[in-house]
């Protein structure tokens, strides 16, 4: 597999959310708007790339039997770094993502890539893999967030898109369900169905 394939596989072919169905907890919970999805996706990408680099570097130093706890500690450290840095420099985004930043630690995607890819490949491939998988995850979250925000609040990235009829005082009549938790499942289900349709043809 060359580097280009290695990078692009994360978007459709092996997309973490739509194909592998990994990391669904943050996926469903934070994607109530496109901005939140993008922020969460980029934070996860950062952690994924950094963790992949370190795991690829130390893979031969870590004995087989303690590799999982070592990887978890490495991942948790990077997550805490992201958490603290965001709280200090991007407080509003940090507030919106809230509890889900610390939860990147338990995102199966990050540990999955460390275990399945970075611990068996060299550092360059690991960086490319982390970037591809992470951006694919960010793409999936943003897409889901955009769909939910459009249907549930009548806007995308905060810009209102007038596809809904409005009430007398100008507020759009939207399908509020999509911003709430059940809407996340419905929207994700339809997106997976559409992607599967395209993958088959």
């Amino acid at each position: 597999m060359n580097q280009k394939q290695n990078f692009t596989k994360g978007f459709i072919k092996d997309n973490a959310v739509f194909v592998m169905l990994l990391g669904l907890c943050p996926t469903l919970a934070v994607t109530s708007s496109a901005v939140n999805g993008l922020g969460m996706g980029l934070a996860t990408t950062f952690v994924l790339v950094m963790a992949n680099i370190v795991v690829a570097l130390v893979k031969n130093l870590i004995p087989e039997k303690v590799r999982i706890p070592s990887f978890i500690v490495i991942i948790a450290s990077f997550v805490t770094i992201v958490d603290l840095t965001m709280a200090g420099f991007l407080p509003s985004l940090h507030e919106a993502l809230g509890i889900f930043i610390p939860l990147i630690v338990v995102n199966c995607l990050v540990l999955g890539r460390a275990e399945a890819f970075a611990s068996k490949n060299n550092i360059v491939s690991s960086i490319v893999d982390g970037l591809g998988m992470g951006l694919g995850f960010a793409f999936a979250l943003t897409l889901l967030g955009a769909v939910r925000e459009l249907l549930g609040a009548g806007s995308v990235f905060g810009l209102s898109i007038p596809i809904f009829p409005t009430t007398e005082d100008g507020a759009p009549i939207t399908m509020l369900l999509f911003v709430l938790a059940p809407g996340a499942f419905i929207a994700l289900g339809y997106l997976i169905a559409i992607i599967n349709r395209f993958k088959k043809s």
Partner: protein
Amino acid sequence: MAKRESTFINMVVTLFAVTFIASATLGGIYELTKEPIAKAKLEKKLKAIQLVVPEFDNDPNSEMYTIKTENDDMPLEVYPAKKGDKLVGVAVKSYTMKGYSGLIQLMVGFKPDGTINKISVLQHAETPGLGTKMTDASFKDQFYGKNPADFNLEVKKDGGDVDAITAATISSRAFCDAVKRAYDQYMKGGKK
């Protein structure tokens, strides 16, 4: 380079090294970000105070005092706003646990006579699209300029004077509860 074998001593040394490096790095990062985080928090608080009280020229944060409530762990914080030496208003950081998703924190600004000046929502976890409307002007504005002495801080359904948000009566009640707590405690003995 061959993989290290999983002998007991290798495992102990590896885990020790990994956790040691990780904790040392995090300690460093914590020191680096401590100041920006504190600054961001303070700025947010000052902004909330500025929003709810008339113009002032003192530093309300350094003159902050607290009022005890029935819950010992959560005293109300009072930030006096002064222009010159004259008290122009106070910002009371109040809370309620009665929100649809628990804790709601408000910054309620009073004029010295107890009239509500403005209110800003600091923290909440209400339902998006329903309870979140309590941060909208259309709901908050009805409190402005009212004195709780003759404005009953309960929703109309409960016999009060407050128009509840459609489909979010619980959030509206909680909001009233937090404002009432701020007013009651401040009038009861919080004045300085």
